[in-house]
């Protein structure tokens, strides 16, 4: 469990805080999405959740982040970096090895997982992400989606309770993005791993996450179930966050009093809505 309490953080060479008074509770088995425009502070928040901030970045840190009761400022990174694993935004530079299996072994070796256990952990991590056949491949030869899975496997092998991912689908096509979300849901449901995902794709977030946090200029503006957050379409538009056109359509129909159902997120849902509005059943 992570509890962020009135967290404010300002990078050393910056004139404005990147996070302003953020309070957030992340419970066991949660599946939380964090969204917001570029520069809203999503990466900064993600890094504050596992102590990378303030340990690895200089700046002024106020408030507290507690991981299972341990204050991140008072403890060393290695005390909690296995509990809260993070896949960072820049996928290439976080890799430490050139071959897939070496990448996954790296953390296992460092944390002194016994050599009897290490092979099994490696294979399990590969299997969990369905990349067993990539084991001996060069990372540089992999596709974006495959690299992303390798990065996740490398963290997953360390058996974290909480997995933080910073825009893992940022450079992926819609199909691979969905695949990643599907994998995360599986990890969440079957292994009980808490997932915190930074993501710009509202539609995927609404479909998969249990809770959606919206940041704007370092402040937390929403923290609720996606179905509730998405009803504030006007707010999204003022913040400059893209919402699916079908969601906007249902929103406009609601404003006009023509529709009193929920916000639609898929074309199929929207079609149903439009037919209902037009009294034109299939």
């Amino acid at each position: 469990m992570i509890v962020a309490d009135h967290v404010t953080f300002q990078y050393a060479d910056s004139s404005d805080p990147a996070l302003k008074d953020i309070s957030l509770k992340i419970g066991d088995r949660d599946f939380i999405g964090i969204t917001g425009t570029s520069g809203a502070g999503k990466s900064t928040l993600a890094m504050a959740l596992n102590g990378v901030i303030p340990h690895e970045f200089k700046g002024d840190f106020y408030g507290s982040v507690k991981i299972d009761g341990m204050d991140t400022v008072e403890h060393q990174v290695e005390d909690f970096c296995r509990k809260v694993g993070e896949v960072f935004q820049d996928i290439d530079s976080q890799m430490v090895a050139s071959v897939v299996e070496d990448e996954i072994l790296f953390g296992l070796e460092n944390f002194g997982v016994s050599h009897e256990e290490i092979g099994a952990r490696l294979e399990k991590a590969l299997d969990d992400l369905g990349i067993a056949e990539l084991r001996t491949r060069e990372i540089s030869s992999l596709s974006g989606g495959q690299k992303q899975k390798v990065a996740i496997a490398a963290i997953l092998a360390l058996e974290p309770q909480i997995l933080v991912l910073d825009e893992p689908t940022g450079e992926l096509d819609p199909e691979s993005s969905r695949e990643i979300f599907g994998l995360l849901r599986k990890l969440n449901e079957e292994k009980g791993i808490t997932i915190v995902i930074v993501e710009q794709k509202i539609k995927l977030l609404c479909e998969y996450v249990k809770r959606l946090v919206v940041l704007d200029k370092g402040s937390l503006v929403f923290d609720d179930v996606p179905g509730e957050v998405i009803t504030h379409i006007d707010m999204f538009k003022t913040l400059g966050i893209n919402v699916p056109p079908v969601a906007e359509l249902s929103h406009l129909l609601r404003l006009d009093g023509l529709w009193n159902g929920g916000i639609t997120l898929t074309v199929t849902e929207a079609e149903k809505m439009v037919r209902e509005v037009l009294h034109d059943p299939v």
Partner: protein
Amino acid sequence: MNLLNYVPGNSFLHRLNPITKLAAAFLYGIACILCDSIWMELAFIVLMIAICAAAGLGTRALRLTRNLLILGLFMFVLQLFFVRTGEALVTIGHFVLITTGGLTSALLLSLRVVATMLPLMLLFAITPMNDLCNALVKKAHLPYRYAFIITTAFRFVPLFSTEFHEIQDAQKARGVDFETKNILRKMQLVAPLCVPLLVSSLEKVNSSAISAEMRGFHLRSRQSGYKEYPFTGSDLLVFVLLLALVAFSAVFL
């Protein structure tokens, strides 16, 4: 294509211990340096290509040889005009341009450069950097920190070149013409790109360090490595053969 990347495979060369490969490449190079015969240098080059061909790396060896020959040609030209021993071969009026001594020493030097460099370059084709460093940490007690720096440097070279091309493309999109043949003009265009490249490189190195740190980098010790790199009979055989080759080259060639 990158001529220094690893070529996956399971040939007799691939299966050797990484340390054996490194030592063998150096010993072969030493043998070439000790050798003073043009024909034997040629033989060394051909032998190296043949060994690689037998391991399925023929094309890589040939392409590397071709590239090294270009370097060799440069050395050849320099040496040709600098060494002035022996008899006059080409004269312009009273001025002796090329001598027999110049020609032989230029040929020998350039072939020697090619023969010496070839095995070292081919080392990369048969050895994943990670394995080499891990083996050096385990067997040669190289501090892991250094091993990590070496592997990281190698990994980052292609990343930087992608980065450079991305920045260049962004500039092209703004109408900067990089296709110019004029070297001075080209340098003028490329120089300003170095700053953003340096900044983003430093950022990449920093985030790489953080990622390593978050996965327990500084807890690592020499015993941490999971993979073992045992020496086998074939490693011993290779050592013996190459030491013999060096001795032979030192005494007879």
